């Protein structure tokens, strides 16, 4: 088994395809079913949704001291909106879950393996 990060990337200012209330409800329902299935099959490890990047804080070492600054680490238009950590037999398994997530929320999903997490 390998662990994979499925990350949901959003582009700031670039509105998603506008959804009607009905579509949004459908999307939530689809995602709920999907997450339930991830859990019941043992694929789900952890997942979360993040607040927007304006809420981020960065700490770093500078001259032997910790300096705290406001804002995201990288100023970019693309940011991480949420993620799943799943485990799968191989990349095809991970891509299968990712396909279903993108189908539910209509946002591109990046799939990346964790290093040294093979169980």
């Amino acid at each position, binding site marked *: 088994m*390998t662990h*994979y990060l499925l990350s949901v990337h959003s582009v700031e200012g670039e509105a998603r395809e506008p959804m009607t209330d009905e579509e949004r409800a459908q999307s939530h329902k689809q995602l709920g079913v999907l997450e339930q299935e991830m859990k019941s099959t043992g694929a789900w490890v952890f997942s979360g949704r993040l607040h927007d990047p304006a809420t981020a804080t960065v700490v770093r070492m500078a001259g032997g001291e910790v300096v705290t600054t406001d804002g995201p680490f990288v100023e970019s238009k693309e940011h991480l909106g949420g993620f799943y950590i799943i485990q799968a*037999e*191989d*990349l*095809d398994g*991970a*891509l299968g879950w990712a396909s279903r997530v993108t189908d539910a929320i209509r946002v591109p999903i990046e*799939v*990346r*393996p964790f*290093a040294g997490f093979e169980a």
Partner: protein
Amino acid sequence: MGDGEAATRLENAEVGRIFREESGRSLAALIRTFGDIDVAEDAVQEAFAVALGRWPREGVPPNPGGWITTTARNHAIDRLRRESRGRELLSEVAVLTPGRDDPGEPDVGPVQDDRLRLIFTCCHPALSTQAQVALTLRLLGGLSTEQVARSFLVTEATMARRLVRAKHKIKAARIPYRVPEAHELPDRLRPVLAVVYLVYNAGLTGSAEPDLCAEAIRLARILAALMPDEPEVAGLLALLLLTESRRASRTGADGSLVVLGEQDRTRWDRGLISEGQAILRWCLRRNQPGAYQLQAAINAVHADAATVEQTDWPQIVALYDQLLGVAPTPVVALNRAIAIGELQGPAVALALVDELDLDNYHLFHATRADLLRRLGRHREATAAYQRAAAMAPTDAERAFLRRGGRASR
């Protein structure tokens, strides 16, 4: 240099050829056993060194493929025993594949062939097309990194990096080593066929050595043997054979391109044509047309015509209509327009061509140039020939276009 030395050198080339023919299968089997491409590659490379030392003296063993697999496997096991990480890997192998060490293991049938697993791994959609092509030629075709690099006009170092990167991704992301299931097959087969077709076309326009056309046909034959029920696999093989039948007549004495209408049709290889047409007849009975089968059918119609005037253009237009249905690309539309031009004249064709958004494609300008010339619009034709020549990717095509295309018609 004595004669004996020359004879040995010749033998070495022969060893290299036989080895290359057989090594893909051995490599594929070893990757399954050890679950690691690098381990398998090193082992096959060592077996090659042994073969170079032994075969010229003792002769080629009766089953060279089996010999390579056994020799390479023994080398891999020896090497892994010496390394601690290798010992771990070996114990995993023992758990995963009990009894796999038996060199006399019988072939379990075409579907189980490890080469099929290997090509689906090499052409996994998670890899870039460049990486897919490089991996396929290196691992399945047995070409050296240097040969693969030369085929795609990059330095050996660049190609080596590309291969290392691709293999690292296969390992880290765990791209599986298996033949896709029936429901995934249509999607997963597409890049596999595209890679083989790309290799062929690189051979058609590229340098002579290594002969990528022959390599692509060899790969297509392997695929057709391993997936006997897939009409598009057969269609690709037929397309390559029919295209190959004309390869010798594509180039003039001065090295420039000779277009279809001007080729010496007596030089077409009738053996390849009848093989391609027989495959197509089988496809027709299956009645699941696809892009490769249709392109092969178009080539088969050309192959049937003793002269360009005797070409069954209505049939070709009908096939392009069908092809446009399954592959609606501007390049297909361009070729369809050319065929329509043969039936309805250059003015109709030019009107169709001018609607296409292909300004960056040299054959778009070459086609316009030819049609304009036939319409007597010589100044515009000259300008179009110049644009086409400036964009042409090969010397042969540039030479043809600089000459202003066909001398007469």
